[in-house]
């Protein structure tokens, strides 16, 4: 293979703006990636916990709604969902909202909005299932006891069930958290200049395809490794003394 390796490429000035080097592109890209993933995760965690709770409440209608949600969002490919959010949904919005989305927002902002909603709702379905499993793994006596003490249902979830359920599901929750960072790369397909899109752009402009992709691989890898370590730390931090099942020693 005839290939000109040049690791100096990242420090070369781009053809776009004087003073801007290719490494800057990767930094902007990483910024978008993190912005997508964190906001998407916030949505996923809030909505997913709510849905997970609904799946376990003693009310058929509420748990039914949550089940339908999960089945829909889990069983349609992520990319299809993204295209729906980006290309179809805006046309269904009421006129003023459509105006705002298509004209007032910058192209990057509207793409960002679509991808954050898409990833947030997609991941919420997965978080929901984890939360449900966590709650159902608790001994039934825990909610009976809380009831017997006079707690009302929302308090039982808030004070007794969720704090325990979340501790149990930290490991699988961590992998969903990492997934949303990885999945954020779908944003490149609707023109948002996150890490993957910046990588492809660098590759096109410099012909240093290998360096660009190797750098990006390393960035994703170390990002995810650090998040994993962070979550391990959190897990240790919230571990309950005297309980091995919850990660304590």
């Amino acid at each position, binding site marked *: 293979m005839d290939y000109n390796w040049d690791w100096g490429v990242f420090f070369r000035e781009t053809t776009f703006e004087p003073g801007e080097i290719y490494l800057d592109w990767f930094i902007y890209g990483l910024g978008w990636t993190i912005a997508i993933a964190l906001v998407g995760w916030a949505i996923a965690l809030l909505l997913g916990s709510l849905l997970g709770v609904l799946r376990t409440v003693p009310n058929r209608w509420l748990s039914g709604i949550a089940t339908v949600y999960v089945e829909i969002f889990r069983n349609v490919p992520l990319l299809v969902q993204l295209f729906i959010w980006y290309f179809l949904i805006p046309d269904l919005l009421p006129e003023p909202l459509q105006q705002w989305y298509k004209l007032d927002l910058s192209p990057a902002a509207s793409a960002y909005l679509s991808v954050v909603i898409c990833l947030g709702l997609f991941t919420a379905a997965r978080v929901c299932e984890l939360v449900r499993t966590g709650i159902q793994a608790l*001994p039934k*006596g*825990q909610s*009976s*006891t*809380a*009831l*017997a*003490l*006079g*707690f*009302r249902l929302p*308090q039982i979830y808030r*004070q*007794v069930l969720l*704090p*325990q359920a979340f*501790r149990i599901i930290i490991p699988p929750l961590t992998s969903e958290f990492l997934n949303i960072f990885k999945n954020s790369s779908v944003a490149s397909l609707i023109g948002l200049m996150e890490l993957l899109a910046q990588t492809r752009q660098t590759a096109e402009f410099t012909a240093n395809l290998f360096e660009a992709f190797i750098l990006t691989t390393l960035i994703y890898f170390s990002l995810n490794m650090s998040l994993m370590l962070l979550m391990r730390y959190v897990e240790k931090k919230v571990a*309950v*003394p*005297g*309980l091995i099942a*919850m990660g*304590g020693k």
Partner: protein
Amino acid sequence: MISIDKVSKWYGDFQVLTDCTTQVQKGEVVVVCGPSGSGKSTLIKCINALEPFQKGDIAVDGVSLANPKTDLPKLRARVGMVFQHFELFPHLSIIDNLTIAPVKVLGRDKTEAVAKGHQLLERVGLKDHASKHPGQLSGGQQQRVAIARALAMDPIVMLFDEPTSALDPEMVNEVLDVMVQLAQEGMTMMCVTHEMGFARKVASRVIFMDQGKIIEDCAKESFFGDTTARSERAQQFLAKILQH
């Protein structure tokens, strides 16, 4: 204090309770015994509405459970309950286990609740364990905490469902001692238990259940003293558990 009036309950087609009727007066200690599956747990859970029943009524301190307008959580907050498997909240420290309900349910001041919690821990002999977590205590200690947790709500009556049957034998007495002390202080209690020593010591009355029915309901003295007057089922049962 508690009045149970012709209560019947079904799980599907299976009738767990049949026309159960009895009363518990203020200050009384009533022991409920009977073979496994006779409906003891079910009956006691009905009293604080943890289990619904289909016929009859139960009134606790004059409040009817069958009345759909009754605020059940509010009623349950006044009835203390201790379960076979302790069911402490494992993610909370011992003192937090004792204060969470008074603070969140009764809206008490946190510092007052903590002070009271420490008092109760002292009373059940665990004052040095306040900052531990349930997983760090033995079964007997956990059950004593569970009793203290129920007492922290200043209940008008305490219900116990086989509080010692999940314990190693050497831990049974530390829990019974707390219960005896409680009985002697005048607490109204209804206890499902097979600890006949406990019944002899503090019970006012003994109820014997079989197949969902209350078969015997009599003063302790006649239950243990005049066994020939007891039903055949009760005699067989007593013979079995009094052997050891």
